[in-house]
């Protein structure tokens, strides 16, 4: 809306400048292909009310953060995602990262583990230990956390379709260390909805898979009260090609879906929602990302109040982890990725993230080497210790541009909520293929914009080099990992009590058939050294497997 003052400025100051030098482009767009205006002024934020919409940090609607002191009280947790090869190798990497000042652990599992197959399944061939660490049974998990005190270190596990099984393994390892379940903390990704939407690592059909998630909520609320049983993830939605608004909208709507399912299962909102956490991407477009995090907190607080009637501050406060955008890393001139990651990480910090993973510069080529992983961690330490951005809370709050963008993204996300609600919720929307199509469409539009040169990727479609200097060393994982894992698996199968395993698996099937909470039976099966593949097969027998809607 032009004001008298802005019209005057346009006429007296802007127009002569444009006459002298036109702007470089007709339209300026964010990485989400959203139009950005030339200038933002008080007129762009005149509908916002400070107390109602922005408010003080630590107060509803938490736009400026959930802690009144921001990072002055406590820095974010520096939590580098790591996992490759054998449990022994990953255990060594964990210890190395902790020696270097990392403050939390985050486990990456390999594809067979993510899909619920053992290392000796024919489907696992070529994939054991490649994208993460290989875990087929409790025996692997014991090695993975050897010498890492689970009562003191918080561990995040990126596992989804078989999450309840890996949670059970984690709890049994903790127990064997002598750690008390009511003392341990950590996070299970366990966000199955975004698997159907984006990352596509599913096993069972959606509804039984949702039931398994709710089982973990109920179990943790009762027995592991400091543990976060879900990390509702926009990260993968964004990586699959979503815009920032789509990431925001689909992630929060997924979160609402979990809350609804929990409530429908008889859980108390204010008991389990405070333990739900979120996970967002930090992409290239600096202000769009910061606005996204601020909008996310505001939307979550308002929706928890409006939809579920909560007034409990820990239910209303959205806590989140951030990871820099793997998809933005380039194979070309890979050292440039260090700079991209630093800027993306800064956006996460200015957006008030609770924990952060910075990607290593070589991740468009392979899993990170020690050296690349170290630089990634140092990037966070430089932001925390040298830049001064941690000295004040929400330093960009009040920027006309940022506040206007925060508001715009909130409104656009709410528009998606209305569409998804009209479809009967997120599970129905996914069954209809709605978020999947929206994301595919955005991915295609972005690719076209890159090919037209409208979106610039340095080193890829501009400033390219035919003779690139210095190749970077990469981490190679060979097939000896599989041999090593097969040996331990065979030993485990020989040493365990086969009758006890069969019995435990039968009990798990019975629990699944009877719609009882599957966690106690899963824990018993894990204790008997039933393998991940065996446990998931038992559940596959009961639940069936998911079939994707046609492309």
């Amino acid at each position, binding site marked *: 809306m032009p004001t008298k003052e802005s019209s005057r400025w346009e006429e007296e100051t802007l127009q002569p400048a444009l006459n002298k030098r036109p702007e470089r482009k007709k339209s300026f767009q964010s990485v989400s292909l959203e139009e950005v205006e030339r200038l933002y002024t008080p007129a762009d934020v005149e509908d916002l009310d400070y107390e109602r919409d922005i408010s003080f940090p630590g107060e509803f609607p938490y736009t400026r953060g959930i802690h009144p002191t921001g990072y002055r009280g406590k820095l974010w947790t520096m939590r580098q995602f790591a996992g490759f090869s054998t449990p022994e190798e990953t255990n060594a990497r964990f210890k190395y990262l902790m020696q270097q000042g990392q403050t939390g652990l985050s486990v990456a599992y390999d594809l067979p583990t993510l*899909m619920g197959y053992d290392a000796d399944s024919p*489907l*696992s061939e070529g994939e054991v230990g490649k994208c993460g660490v290989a875990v087929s049974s409790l025996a692997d998990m014991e090695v993975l956390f050897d010498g890492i005190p689970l009562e003191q270190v918080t561990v995040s596990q990126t596992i989804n379709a078989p999450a309840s099984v890996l949670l059970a393994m984690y709890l049994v390892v903790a127990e064997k260390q002598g750690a008390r379940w009511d003392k341990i903390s950590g996070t299970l990704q366990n966000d199955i909805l975004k698997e159907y939407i984006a990352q*596509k690592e599913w096993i069972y059909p959606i509804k039984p898979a949702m039931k398994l998630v709710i089982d973990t909520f109920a179990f943790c609320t009762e027995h592991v009260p400091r543990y976060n049983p879900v990390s509702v993830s926009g990260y993968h939605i964004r*990586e699959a090609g979503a815009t920032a608004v789509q990431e925001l909208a689909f992630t929060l709507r997924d979160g609402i879906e979990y809350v609804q399912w929990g409530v429908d299962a008889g859980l108390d909102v204010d008991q389990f929602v405070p333990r739900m956490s979120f996970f967002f991407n930090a992409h290239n477009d600096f202000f769009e990302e910061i606005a996204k995090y601020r909008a996310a907190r505001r939307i979550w607080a308002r929706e928890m109040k409006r939809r579920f009637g909560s007034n409990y501050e820990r239910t209303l406060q959205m806590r989140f982890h951030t990871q820099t955008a793997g998809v933005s890393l380039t194979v070309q001139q890979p050292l440039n990725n260090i700079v991209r990651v630093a800027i993306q990480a800064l956006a996460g910090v200015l957006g008030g993230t609770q924990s952060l993973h910075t990607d290593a510069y070589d991740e468009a080529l392979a899993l990170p080497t020690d050296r690349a992983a170290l630089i990634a961690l140092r990037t966070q330490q430089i932001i925390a210790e040298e830049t001064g951005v941690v000295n004040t809370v929400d330093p960009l709050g009040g920027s006309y541009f940022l506040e206007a963008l925060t508001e715009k993204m909130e409104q656009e996300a709410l528009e998606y909520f209305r569409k998804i609600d009209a479809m009967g919720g997120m599970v129905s929307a996914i069954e209809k293929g709605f978020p999947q199509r929206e994301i595919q469409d955005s*991915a295609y539009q972005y*690719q076209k914009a890159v090919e037209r040169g409208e979106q610039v990727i340095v080193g890829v479609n501009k400033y390219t080099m035919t003779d690139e200097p210095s*190749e970077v060393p990469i981490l190679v994982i060979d097939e000896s990992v599989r041999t090593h894992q097969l040996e331990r698996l065979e030993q485990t199968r020989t040493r365990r009590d086969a009758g006890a395993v069969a019995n435990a698996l039968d009990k798990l099937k019975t629990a699944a058939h009877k719609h009882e909470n599957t966690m106690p039976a899963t824990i018993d099966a894990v204790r008997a050294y039933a393998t991940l593949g065996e446990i998931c097969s038992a559940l596959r027998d009961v639940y069936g497997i998911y079939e994707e809607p046609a492309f």
Partner: protein
Amino acid sequence: MSNRKIRVLVAKPGLDGHDRGAKVIARALRDAGMEVIYTGLRQTPEMIAAAALQEDVDAVGVSILSGAHNTLCPRIVQLLREKGMDNVLVLVGGIVPQEDLPRLKEQGVAEVFLPGTSTEDIVKFLQDNVKPRD
């Protein structure tokens, strides 16, 4: 020369579910006038070769980001050749280290497209390299 459209099977072998690239490529090839069949996720080399035969394709585009390319790609080529599809081009797209490229090509992969490749380059490669049929 016939006016037959180029037919391409876009395939996702292995356990990896990251299908952004496969779907962008499928759509770009369709927009370029080709007939595209997408296999869906988690196809074994045997399933991919069977689909290529059944669909009578000119090329198979294999999307793979998991690091399992050295195991899966040569097997796909071998199965295609065993089924008599000698002229079917096998293209690979995804995260493949530079060191692995010569070996994949020796094993019969026609081309490997790394991250950052323009879809136009892939279209052009297919147009230039698919052998015309009667």
